[in-house]
């Protein structure tokens, strides 16, 4: 992977640089939320990287500009590691089959031993909760019929993964006020 050659000079820059190299694309808001330093420091650092042509605008998401520090080769190898995970392989099978049971996901992987039926079922449940899947045939455990799902939200080649983060809930406003980490 060919990331640009840059050595951060202090702790704040190190934290910002680590975030930039961990994510393929990010917004300025993501970057600011990822660190504890001031917005002024973030803006100063990003302006420096933009002058050096290290930080590049890559695309827009509506009115929001997304940035990257990865060139094509770096972006391609960034995805490879994620696709080779357990969830990456299951996601690839789901995207190909479109309609499937957890057992078919396993069968699509040729009965890969490192992934169990429980893994496939758990991943399906998470995707169902996040509304990536829809149940097209309900499970009937009494006759041994598993639930059949359809992939309704195919967001791309990289697998959605479940992550747990600390969240600060403010009961005064009855909503989440802060989530640890900018990009979940």
């Amino acid at each position, binding site marked *: 992977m060919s990331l640009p050659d840059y050595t951060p000079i202090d702790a704040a820059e190190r934290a910002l640089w680590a975030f930039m190299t961990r994510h*393929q694309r990010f917004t300025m808001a993501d970057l600011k939320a990822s660190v504890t330093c001031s917005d002024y420091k973030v803006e100063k650092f990003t302006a420096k990287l933009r002058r050096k042509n290290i930080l590049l605008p*890559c*695309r827009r998401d509506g009115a929001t500009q997304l940035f990257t520090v990865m060139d*094509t*080769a770096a*972006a*391609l190898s*960034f*995805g*490879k590691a994620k*696709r*080779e995970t357990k969830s990456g*392989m*299951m996601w*690839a*099978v789901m*995207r*190909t*089959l479109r309609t499937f049971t957890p*057992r*078919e996901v*396993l*069968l*699509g*992987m*040729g*009965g*890969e*031993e*490192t992934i169990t039926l429980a893994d496939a079922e758990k991943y399906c449940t998470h995707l169902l909760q996040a509304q990536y899947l829809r149940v097209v045939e309900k499970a009937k455990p*009494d*006759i*041994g*019929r598993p639930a059949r799902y359809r992939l309704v939200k195919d967001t*791309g*080649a*990289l697998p959605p993964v479940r992550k747990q983060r600390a969240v600060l809930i403010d009961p005064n406003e009855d909503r989440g006020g802060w989530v640890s980490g900018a990009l979940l």
Partner: protein
Amino acid sequence: MAQSMNLGNGVRPLSNVARLVTLVERVEKRAFGLPGMAVFHGFPGLGKTFASAFCAAQLDCIHISVQEEWTRKFLLKQILRELGLTARGQTADMGMQANEGLAIAGRTLIIDEADYALKKGMINLIRGLHDGSGVGVVLVGMEDLPQMLKSAEQVDGRILSWDQAEAADTRDTALLAEHYAPGVSFDEAMLDRIRKRNNGSARYISRDLAYVLEQCQIQGDFLMTADKWGDAPFPRAQAPVPRGALA
């Protein structure tokens, strides 16, 4: 063509999966100068898409299933999306971007439903991607795909190898039984009966096996032989013909 049934890591694939894997490996490991396109074709229900799913998951191939309404531009956008790249500019720019991305990634491209790609005039675009990036391209489609490709001479000349998806054999049927009827013990005659009844179509065999599991669960008997099953009906295999008058 000989296929290995052992793909390592305890993976036991269906025979059509092994066939497609062999084809992918052939185009990936071809000698310099040889064309890198291949065709995997067969009747519906034999497990071609399952085989493609395996290649996408285990061999990191890019799987694109072409649909009837797709245009050339949309196909390029989909390929770029699979590569994790943002499409920029006109169709020609996207073509260049896809060539560059595929060449750097070195991932074999599997084009499923290639019949549509041929009908919609995308086949030369796919050939261009093969020529421009040097990656292997496997076209997956219906039984008559190789004959249909004869009309596109430049593509036909770049085909390194063809292989057919075959009807499920006894081993495949037993493997499908492990997945679709877990916990049920079948005798060989019963598996053979299900296989023959469905002409080796993996899709229909799976449906029958799931039905047998349902019946076993209802009866509480998990040993199923051909004798025990007797003349009991299976799910309907053919669409019903119109009945006569009601009276």
